[in-house]
């Protein structure tokens, strides 16, 4: 299919490494949990004035004028933009989210909403993996 459009591109190497690790350390029997990353407290994240304005969807920043030809022009004044935020994933890769929603951006930056982040685990050789 499309290796570049898939988050699995790096997995073959990871599989080789993890398999090797089991050969070397057969005592490891538990499934590998995703890494733990410390994210900033949501309430302490300061998006900054520019980003706040970009995420402003109240319409208060808009200024409308009508040209002599009758075309109505609405200046967005930096509002109504889409913002891409990024965070480290448990596998060390960068995960990104584009949003026009301030609350969604803050959740993402605070490491919340991790339900659909990609998850990988390894199978242990004795395979009792609960």
């Amino acid at each position, binding site marked *: 299919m499309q290796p*570049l*459009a*898939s*988050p*699995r591109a790096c997995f073959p190497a*990871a*599989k080789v490494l993890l*398999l090797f690790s*089991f050969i070397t350390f057969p005592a490891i029997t538990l499934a590998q949990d995703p890494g733990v*990353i*410390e*994210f900033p407290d949501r309430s302490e*994240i300061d*998006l*900054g004035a*520019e*980003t706040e304005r*970009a995420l402003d*969807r109240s*319409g208060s920043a*808009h200024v*409308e004028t009508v*040209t002599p030809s*009758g*075309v*109505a*022009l*609405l*200046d*967005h004044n930096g509002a*109504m*933009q*889409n*913002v*891409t935020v*990024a965070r*480290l994933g448990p596998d*060390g890769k*960068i*995960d*990104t*989210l*584009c*949003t*026009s*929603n*301030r*609350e*969604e*951006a803050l*959740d993402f*930056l605070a*490491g919340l909403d991790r339900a*659909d982040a*990609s*998850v990988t685990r*390894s199978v242990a050789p004795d*395979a*009792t*993996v609960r």
Partner: protein
Amino acid sequence: MKSPLVLALATVALAVGSPAAAATIVINVADGAGEGFNDPNPPGDPSQRGNNPGTTLGELRLNLFETAANVWAGILDSEVTITVNARFDPLTCSASSGTLGFAGAAASSANVPNGLAGTRYPIALAESLAGANLNGSGAEINATFNSEPDTLSADCLGGGGYYYGLDGDAPAGQISLFSVVLHELGHGLGFASFAQENGQFSGGLPDIFSRQLRDLETGKNWADMSDAERAASSLNDPDLVWTGARVTTARGDFLDNAVEMVINSPPAIAGTFPVTLGQEPDIDLDSTGVTADVVDGDALGGCTFFANNAAVAGRIALFAEDGDCFSPFRGFFTETAGGVGAIISSDQPLGDASVSGQISNQDVTIPYVGTTQALGNDLRNNLPGANVTLRRSTTVFIGENAGRVRMYAPASFEAGSSVSHWSSAATPDLLMEPRLGNIGFDQVDLTVAAFQDMGWRTRSAGPPLIFKDAFEIP
């Protein structure tokens, strides 16, 4: 931020549309001397360059923006120059998360010559339709990106910095910027709703993007809804869909065929039902699929290797999700025993996390699918004797609902969601999905059809628009 005078003195404009391009997109550098696009310093890590010919951070940034702009310029048709007011500024960044950048249409217009009446257009599209400059010296698109990652400080997203290569080969830990810029420019060109957080349309008129949206549950188009209905609809996944004919027609060119489960017997529960395919990359499943009797996987093994492989060999194992077993393991253990498929029933909606994730050190090639608890119970209550087929649909695609491509409308946020993206369920991933991960896109896939639905004229013989196995800049 720089003063207007400094900005004016430092601003340079570079046309990036190639002679063969139908549109001309200009990157108007809005940074002061010595910073942002004018930064004379080399990247802190030479590997950030990739195949980008630039030597300074400023050159690398400009080359990347120009190349992304050229992708769009090579597809769209406009007699009016599209100006992108672009800059790099320090934005929010912590050791684990941060802002990369933002972009959008600088303005929008209504009463546009050759446009729909009572409809607001992003300014670049409005000018293309009108064949005239409508906003004087103003830019059509604003784009601001964060310069902090290039400090390579561990205090900003791990310190890997941006990858400026014009390919998809970002080293681990570096941020693949090209795809992000290509995506954000797509928003600036018009892939965005101008509905406000309360559902009200900016300027009191529906925008051309929102005119393509329909809520399948209510049966109403966005343009015909009240503000409150529209705000509610923005959270109504999976029923918010794109109605434009070109996207609907083209969806099969970009989306994988959906997976379905056919219950062949017993007749009392027979039928064809959508299921969610697991995420292991090597699953082999076509429209013929696999057909086999169903056995109770929980009773025979659970979340471990089966003790009696013969009971599973050649069959499809049925499991109930208990919240404790990583779902791909079910597929792996079933395949190891010689089984040809696995069904995992759960209380989660189809398409959610019931079969998400991958095993990092083993491959799974048999299909394992997620289904509802009700269907799982129907099968379980008919064992032995149930026979099913797991196969690819020939008419339904992943990321659609009732033949229409789904929009991103998660119910997680009260203040109206970010509907200006395709649903994350679309498979394979599309450029205008909300989560790009760190994967490389050089194609704009279904976005072109969306732009056509909105009224953009496109080149008849543009660059290849389908996903490729190799990253290629047209």
